[in-house]
């Protein structure tokens, strides 16, 4: 019988409806909207830059260091995920805490970057070349703060032992968002360096 069915190409096999966890799916769609927000910003940057009258300045070195910090925080985030999978609660708590601390350090370094920009006489108000720098770092920082809030919730959940090998949704969502914010910053950073 099943052979007969397979022979007929008109028939489509009944498929299970995709049942991804709706919350995770919502996260991915949310990420799509953030991507579009920054895609618009970076295209605006290119369009405006192509028109000339563009202020040239050196990007403060602290932004390179902060990028390294954020990449490391992504690694510790992954460590947290592996720890959760292995029900290693001590490492889980330590890893989330370190990730959170690195996130805060990143934000502080971004702020130092702004201070250096001001010292270089590149201001938020003035030539759009400088304004865009502040907008990119500022908007990314704003999203990173939301990532930190997600981390706090994950940390609280870790202390309540509600994250473990059989309940990984929350840590997976936190980790996916954090890695995304990391990749987003790397994109913005290399974009700014390349199209300078």
């Amino acid at each position, binding site marked *: 019988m099943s052979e007969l069915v397979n022979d007929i190409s008109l*028939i489509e096999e009944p498929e299970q409806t995709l049942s991804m966890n709706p919350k995770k*799916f919502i996260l991915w769609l949310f990420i799509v*909207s953030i991507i579009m927000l920054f895609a618009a910003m970076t295209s605006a940057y290119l369009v405006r830059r192509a028109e000339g009258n563009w202020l040239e300045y050196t990007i403060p070195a602290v932004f390179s260091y902060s990028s390294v910090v954020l990449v490391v925080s992504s690694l510790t985030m992954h460590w947290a995920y592996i720890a959760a999978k292995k029900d290693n609660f001590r490492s889980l708590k330590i890893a989330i805490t370190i990730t959170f601390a690195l996130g805060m350090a990143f934000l502080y370094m971004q702020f130092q970057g702004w201070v250096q920009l001001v010292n270089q006489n590149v201001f938020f*108000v003035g030539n759009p070349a400088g304004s865009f720098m502040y907008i990119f770092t500022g908007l990314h920082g704003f999203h990173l703060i939301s990532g930190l809030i997600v981390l706090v919730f994950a940390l609280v959940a870790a202390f309540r032992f509600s994250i473990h090998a059989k309940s990984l949704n929350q840590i997976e969502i936190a980790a996916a968002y954090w890695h995304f914010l990391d990749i987003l910053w790397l994109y913005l950073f290399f974009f700014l360096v390349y199209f300078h």
Partner: protein
Amino acid sequence: MATAIDNQATVAHVAEHEHHEPQSFLRTYIFSEDHKTIAKQYLISGIIWSVIGISLSVIFRLQLGFPDMNMGFLRPVLGNWINESNKLDPNFYLALVTMHGTIMVFFVLTAGLSGTFSNFLIPLQIGARDMASGFLNMLSYWFFFLASVIMFASMFIETGPAGGGWVVYPPLSALPQASPGGGSGMTMWLVSMALFIVSQLLGGINYITTVINLRTRGMSFSKLPLTIWAFFLTAVLGLISFPVLLSASLLLIFDRSFGTSFYLSEIYINGEALPNVGGSPILFQHLFWFLGHPEVYIVLLPALGMTSEIIATNSRKPIFGYRAMIASMMGIAFLAFIVWAHHMFVTGMNPFLGSIFMFLTLIIAVPSAVKAFNYITTLWRGNIRFTPAMLFSIGLVSFFISGGLTGLILGNSALDIQLHDTYFVVAHFHLVMGAASAFGLLAGVYHWFPKMFGRMLNEKLGYIHFWLTFIGIYLVFFPMHYVGIAGFPRRYYAFTSYDFTKNIFADMNSFISLAAVFTFTAQWVFMYNFVYSLFKGKKATQNPWKSNTLEWTTPIEPGHGNWPGEIPAVYRWPYDYSKPGAKDDFIPQNVPYSQTPESNLPHENELISLEKEIEAQNLNDQFKQPH
């Protein structure tokens, strides 16, 4: 087989759960997470907004049609916006135009249309208990409500609402000095729109997740009603384009409030230079129209989707070209993102680039024509029942064709340079996007009113409403094409002071205005019908239109969770109307082929063997319990 046993186990397990506690009034009717209540909230808000939005247009139409009119009688409503000589204040005229556009495009035809019908129909037609996240859905409505309150409040501040047009081009929108509404009115506009975008994103994310994850057993994408396809693609369009508008308005907010120069450069006011240097106003237009063009389809696609469903049901025929309809909607959705610059042919764009955008724009005619022909071929030799919903759907097809034809003209950059910013453009988009979508909305209300409120709308009043509106809209917008070809520019307060407009078409403008008042008056027939039928309408039966889709398998007034028992499984596509050999002229989606041997086609008989497999599938029931 193992899965079937598992499934029975789940069902047994499910029965042990207790029912939800009845919720408080506040949670049931105000801060509700139920998709049906949220849909009704959107519908009522949309109706209130449309009354406000259309009233504004009537006021400025009076000014355009009768420039010498004594407007003193409007003073009790408009106060000082009627000046000493009993005329409309010119600045307020611009504010009226701006608010009319903003309200109709965003608050009525985006939130009122998608918000109502995506929320109402997606769970009911795909067989889900509710949206993926009821909480985000509730949040979506209340962000919209907050946006509405702020936009409404901006009309009552002393300097008036924003007056830079609904497209808010800088520098007009960026400089408080540009118009009275350029100060706090414009600020409130931007805040309101930012909240509106958040609301639309929350809603859209929910729609997409629900359609992909929460379909019932057997409801594959190739069995989805076209309504759901349309809502799904609309939500995808919104998800991709609204963040871009958010970017554009963020930069505008920084320009306005923090002194940056993204859009401003070398501007002189009263001989004094502004400090802003290095910005580009064209940049805003690029960002705005990257949303603005998809927005046209965000408004139109849901209407087209509902029309497909209504026309197939009331022609008692399968929709013609189901897959072609899906493909053309996908084509339209894709092309929507690569044609934005056809709104900018006169910005000094490189003519070569202009011809590329012209080419891409004209390609949209192909999927649009496929849709138009498919509607007509569905109607062809159908057993047509002219319900009010059907009439409005046919009206939509008419507007879609007559408005779409002028789209071909405007899409040509050479012709657009002549016609840009004239009433020809106004007539074009009001027919193809405004009237067509509004007819989709009205068709949807007439068709799904019995499911929403358990009562029928009065048919006779529906017919009267249709004919008055249909004729009225053509009387308004057909003559407007002539006015546009004659070169009358839009957004002008009066045509009495220019040589080229002074002595012509004054009678035509008066005629258009009278037709507008007539059409507006006709809408009160609908308002009366809506309110009357809400309380005193004829009680609806379970499936009043003899339709195939799943929403008609729910109780007449579905409770929380939609189906009292198990969610039905789906075995066939939604368009089995007038199938040869069948007992009735419709076979609902949840009737298995094994029950209809008399009408099955050979390949459908083969499908009978797969029914067990469908039934054995995961129930995909997010509540995990019957209600």
